């Protein structure tokens, strides 16, 4: 069985600005993770479906449009419904300060704002991933 960390990178909502998602996907892959990029305009249902199907350890959401306070709660709710609470969810994008505690309260602790080094994201995932770490 592969011991690589499996990551689903997703772009929810209507926004098509995928530069960040693609750069992160590549950086995670170069660091040795298995990366599945969902492509654009994924609903929370599709994202959680992809995580289930791909046996993902991590979901990375890229949101720049301001829709995060609608999309994130739905993703977390669906993960719970499917029994995937141990999937680590991280988010990158433009997140106003006032929303950060609310996202943390939902269980999204890895919040990466513009200018975050790729290395910091890689280290965060390595230190906090739960699923595969337990199985190994």
């Amino acid at each position, binding site marked *: 069985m592969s011991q690589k960390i499996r990551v689903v*990178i997703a772009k929810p*909502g*209507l*926004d*098509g*600005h*995928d*530069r960040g998602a*693609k*750069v992160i*996907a*590549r*950086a995670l*892959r170069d660091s040795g993770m298995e*990366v599945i*990029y*969902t*492509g*654009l*305009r994924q*609903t929370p249902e599709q994202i959680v479906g992809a995580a289930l199907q791909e046996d993902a350890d991590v979901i990375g959401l890229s949101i720049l*449009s*301001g*829709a*995060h*306070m*609608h*999309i994130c709660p739905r993703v977390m709710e669906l993960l719970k419904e499917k029994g995937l609470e141990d999937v680590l969810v991280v988010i990158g994008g*433009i997140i*106003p*300060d*006032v929303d950060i505690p609310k996202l943390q309260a939902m269980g999204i602790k890895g919040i990466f*704002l*513009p*200018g975050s*080094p*790729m*290395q910091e994201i890689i280290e965060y995932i390595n230190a906090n991933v739960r699923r595969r770490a337990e199985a190994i």
Partner: protein
Amino acid sequence: MKTAAESEKQRWEREVLGPALQKSPERRIPFTTISGRPIDRLYTRDDLPGFDAARDLATPGTFPYTRGIHPTGYRGRLWTMRQFAGFGTPEETNDRYRTLLQAGGTGLSVAFDLPTLMGRDPDHPLSLGEVGKCGVSIVSLADMERLFDGIALGNITTSMTINSPAPMIFAMYLVVAEKQGADWKTLSGTIQNDILKEFIAQKEYIYPPRESMRLITDVFAFCANEVPKWNTISVSGYHIREAGSTAAQELAFTLRDGIEYVQYGVDAGLDVDVFAPQISFFFNSHSDFFEEIAKFRAARKLWADVMRNRFKAKNERSWKLRFHTQTAGVSLTAQQPYNNVVRTALQALAAVLGGTQSLHTNSLDEALALPTADTATLALRTQQIIAYESGVTNSVDPLGGSYFLEKLTLDMEHEARRYFDVIDRMGGMVEAVEQGFPQREIAEASYRFQQSVEMRDKIIVGVNDFVQEDEEPIPILYIDDTTANRQLARLHELKQTRDNEAVRRALGALQSAARGGANTMYPLLDCVRAYATVGEMCDALREVWGEYEEVPLI
């Protein structure tokens, strides 16, 4: 045997530079532009062996317009200070427009929200959380009437950043103008209407490429007859650059997109000299000062050549590349946001020295949110200081003749021509896009740049050097859900009060035009007059043409 004479530069390198380097070496950093282009320590006439001033530079207002399209530069008229704005409800955005016009702004520029940009009504599942967030929400003609309430469309110029639903939004603008009593023949402004860069970079496409191109040539044909002063397209490099391209890729892909549009127009039976003068361009002004100025100058020179020699255009207006510029949003940092004022000022200066016709300067808080009224005003003031205090507008193309700048301009031109050849061999830009060629080139460049930032080959002040802990947060514009709720209620009300049978008939006529060859603009105007929504009009064409889906690549 006689050896070639030593050049002035070689002599300088031997006699002056060599000893100097031995005493005090240069810093051990890569001397490259932000695009990764190596830059020499000195440029002299020896770097311009084939340079022909009459051919490559000429004089302002003459072919190939390297020094500008106007003989008087900015001495006649300054550039248009056009600040892109839009958020929340049409009423809120209308307020912001009045603020900007009162502060001395000279043109409007509409930012639409994502549902509008993607042709979805606020009640579509994918619109969840997006209504009014990144721009103003426009659902039907009623919203467009609110947006321009009290603003006489006959007296201002308006730019609308809209692509896939450009014909629908443009039709709304025309109907508002009609209701205000303005003559379409005198209306002036721009719709972005550039679908190729959506496939390449920003990804706000709806229909497949060829059907999308059909909508664009319909707009060309319609405007040539009905709205002759309107810029029917703004061929955009801005988004290509924001997606991570180099300066030369931005130049090359944008102009090659322009070639594609002209070719499709000609193939649709239009006279090049009738529609080409209505084509405008839109570039990014990024942080590498001279590379950007060279890019703008090379763009004018290349386009003049393309139009005159490739398309055999006779009208001088077809040869002249006119462009809008926006400073680089992607260069703004969330850290130490006041630094962004300085970045934006330098980028704006590059755009002015490059001869832009119109300019948007970003606000300092745009890495965090849409700008507040105060930061938007400061961004406008930045342009006014360049225009009225710096003195750079006194002479035309003041940097023309600089060895360094002329060399960079030639290098940019040559790099763009190499891309033209590659894309021509693929069959054109539509084919190149279908094969993912420009998309891959940009993704590569973007990753290379990110790595250079990670390795600190490129320093971004406040991000990977000169970092400051414990920054005080600045006040930002926060858009809550009241807009979404209001727009949903209005949509519901609209569907109960309008003549739904008239809407159905108008949408049916639009579909017939789409299936056949009739110009889609006329039935779209009828849809708008019947208060069909953006989502309904776009869905009607989705039923006929289907939707485009890209293959996700990393």
